[in-house]
């Protein structure tokens, strides 16, 4: 056995919001509490399209940065995040971890597979989940359990009704990221153009 001591990175950071998005799309758990029922509902849509508005607040910037665009979430394929304003950018997080992006994205593949494979346990291992409200108007507060995650993340709040409408991320240094989704449309499958984006980025 060779090379047994790998250089180890102290935790891959950007996986988290993605985890939330995919998790909420992919989990099918027993509905024994609110979180489980929310997950069950969100997992019932094969494809969801929505507009999003994102606002990022960073201490070193004099003003928040807002952006907007379209997102497509597929239970089988992953997440397509298309920013239209103020700059055009597309990010594909494929469910099998082979889509565009460098090693960081590939690193996420492992997690994505677990999530898309309806592995509610995975998130429970990373977060303490605190649900509030009822199935029509719910919020979930996610607090990191692992020391390595807590080093850069304070918490994540999710809110919504039929769909996941708000994701709010607060980083350990106080920077924050808020995403609002609206104009939801549920479909049974991806259209050909979207499918191409997932398969051949």
């Amino acid at each position, binding site marked *: *056995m*060779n*090379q*047994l*001591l*790998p*250089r*180890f*990175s*102290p*935790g*891959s*950071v*950007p996986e*988290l*919001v*993605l985890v939330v*998005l995919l998790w909420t799309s992919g989990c099918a758990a027993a509905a024994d509490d609110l979180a489980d029922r929310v997950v069950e509902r969100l997992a019932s849509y094969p494809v969801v399209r929505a507009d999003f508005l*994102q606002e*990022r607040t*960073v201490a*070193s*910037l*004099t*003003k*928040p*940065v807002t*952006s907007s665009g379209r997102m497509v979430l597929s239970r089988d394929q992953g997440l397509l*995040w298309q*920013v239209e304003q*103020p*700059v055009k*950018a597309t*990010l594909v997080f494929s469910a099998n971890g082979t889509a565009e992006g*460098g*090693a*960081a994205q*590939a*690193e996420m593949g*492992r997690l994505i597979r*677990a999530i898309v494979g309806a592995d509610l*346990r*995975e998130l429970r*291992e990373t977060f303490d989940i605190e649900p509030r409200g009822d199935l029509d108007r719910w919020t979930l507060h996610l607090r990191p359990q*692992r*020391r*390595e995650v807590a*080093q*850069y*993340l304070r918490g994540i709040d999710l809110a919504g009704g039929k769909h996941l409408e708000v994701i709010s*991320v607060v*980083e350990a240094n106080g*920077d924050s*990221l808020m*995403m609002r989704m609206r104009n939801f449309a549920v479909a049974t499958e991806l259209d050909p153009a979207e499918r191409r984006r997932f398969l051949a980025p």
Partner: protein
Amino acid sequence: MSLKTRAALVLIAVAIAAAACAAYLARGVPLQTNLLAMLPPTERDPVVEHVIAKLATSVGARVVFMVSAHDAGHARRAADAFAAGLKSAGGLRALMARLDSVDRSLPAKLYAPHRFGLLTDEDRAGLARTEFNARDAALRQLVMPLPSAAALPLAQDPFGFYGRWLASREPRAGRLRLEDGYLTARDGERVRIVLLGEIDGDAYDERVQQRVVSAFEHASADMHAAEPQAEAWRAGTVFYAAAARAAAKRDMERIGLGATIGVALLVLLAFRTLRPMLLGLLSAAIGILFGTLALLVIDGEIQLVSLAFGASLIGEAVDYSILLFAAHLAAGAVWTPERGVAMVRPGLTVAVGTSLLAYALLALLPFPGVSQIARFALVGLAASYLTVLWLLPAFMQRPSTRDPQAATGWAAVLLDKWSALLTGRRAQWAAVAIALACVPGWLALRANDDVRLLISRDAQLASEEAAIRALTGFDAGGRFFLVRGANEDEVLQREAALVQHLRALEHAGALARHQAVSDHVPPRSRQEEDRALVAKRVFGEPQALARELAQVGFSPESAKTLLQDFERSREPLTIAAWLDSPLSSPLRHLWLRDLPASVVTLHGERDVVATASIATGLDGVTLVDKAGSVSALLGWYRASALPGLLIAAAAVMLVLVLRYGLREAPRLMLPVVLALLVSAAIFGYSGQPLTVFAIGAWLLTLGIGVNYAIFLREGMDRRGATAMAVMLSGSTTLLAWGLLALSGVPALRQFGFALLTGIAGAVLLTPLALRRQ
């Protein structure tokens, strides 16, 4: 010199040899368990051998443990108990069970001052291709739905060049991640925690092995006391080496004990007294004593294989005494020791002569292991031979009290009947049928020289290692690239060129990944070019850059600091700085400072031909494949051993012609030659690969098998006793070699199987050597 004086001299020599042997062994048994040490150096280039040895030492010192339980809490408690057990038991130089806190500033400390010269391939191509738009580039960093948590504060890396470079350097750690300091993998229903350790010494050192194995057992016991459901796996060279040593010891005990008991029973059955058995074993033991002493003096250490082989040498050495005892029995009342010795000496001398000739040819093979076996046999058999002629007669003064006819008559009858059957008409048809049946066997013979087939791996350990590899993604094979150059920078440049090719292979799926120093320290010229590109495209117009950053929302001060950082960072990152950083510790063994040279390891190789072909045309790059070159060497020796077998046969033939004349010699050779042909067919039928070890065994079969024909030919005046001696000799040899065919070491097993089939055939066909009455 009288019989008694000679016997006394032999005993004195034995006593001295025993004392010398004991003195050697008192300093510890220098037993070599590394099977590769059996083989000659394969690389013509001594630098390559040196690098292989160095890598083997640094990698061989590593051990991995994986502790698992059904949930994280139990797994962590189990890992803590296991680690505490390991630490209290000792045996490990270092153990990493839990990372207390990772210093997240380490990469920034090493790389940030040089970051403007560090670009990924994509960023370099992008910058070279299109006009750089600072506003869009900075915004793209901010609009992604990911927390920033960047490697550096955003203002120091607003476009993410450095963040992407660093991220692309990170190895993929399989399914491992850090959970509260534990390296954890989730695997279905179990949570597994990895502990990394380094042993304190050479993995092939018996004392080191004992310490590490007992530390593992101690730690496992502690873990089970704390967490009864937990499970601990292990991987590392030291465990394989310890298992191989234990297996060889078991082999030695089993084969040695089995051979001894079997031989003793046979002797007892034939002679009805324990005396010949004890004397026979004495002669064999003296042979083994001198053989061992010779190895200790000549080689300084004993190969594991030689030891196992030595244990089975009992069978061959006992043959010589059997001949003497048979003569004793046949002489009846007219026995005197002098007469007995005179009776057996001619046949015995010719027989020992042919055996020694075969072993001497084997000793010429440049395999340290095989030639050691041959030295052991040469010295051991010669000592046994002299013991039979000089020492044993002194213990056999009195004639046998049994009636020679009654004691050996059955063997004469058996010989006559078997001879008649063998030379009868039906036997001729049977021979034709057997010869025809042999043809498909010969055609089915396949050579396979892969050295990995010859090394036995403990199945339990192998499955644990495979599981650990799958979960951790540590999957390095035995092949690596060695990159040499006139100076450090040339090495890095050549390595970077190689890495470009490797990336293409990785992209095509022929390779999972590689490890290379230049991925962490790009060559100086590359850093300077990248910095020049960044200077031109990004920092070309400082005012415009500051303005665009302000548009995004960066403060004027942070833009100014960025420009200052860029102006100051003119020195490229050096190997020395990297070596000084704790970040380099897992990869430091890849950099060979004194040469200078570097090693690029390959992980998850799927297309060996593609990997091999990329080295051609790259200066200073060599693909090193120790297992491959050893296998090629084994193949070369196998191919040249076949002519060797013919030469040995010719040499034996020459001895026979000198003694028996041109007409009779071929007949004496006939049984063993036929037996070898049948043995080869059996190899083909059973699907056993044809290796140099099988051919080596046939070489020995030739020497031993021809003995039987000689014994029989020389002893026809006392045919019953001689037939009994041959049958007994054949049975004892078969017992020893037959048990060797059960060995856990594949090389020995093939060796034993070839001897087993060859000798059995030679014994059965020996009557063909007799002149027809």
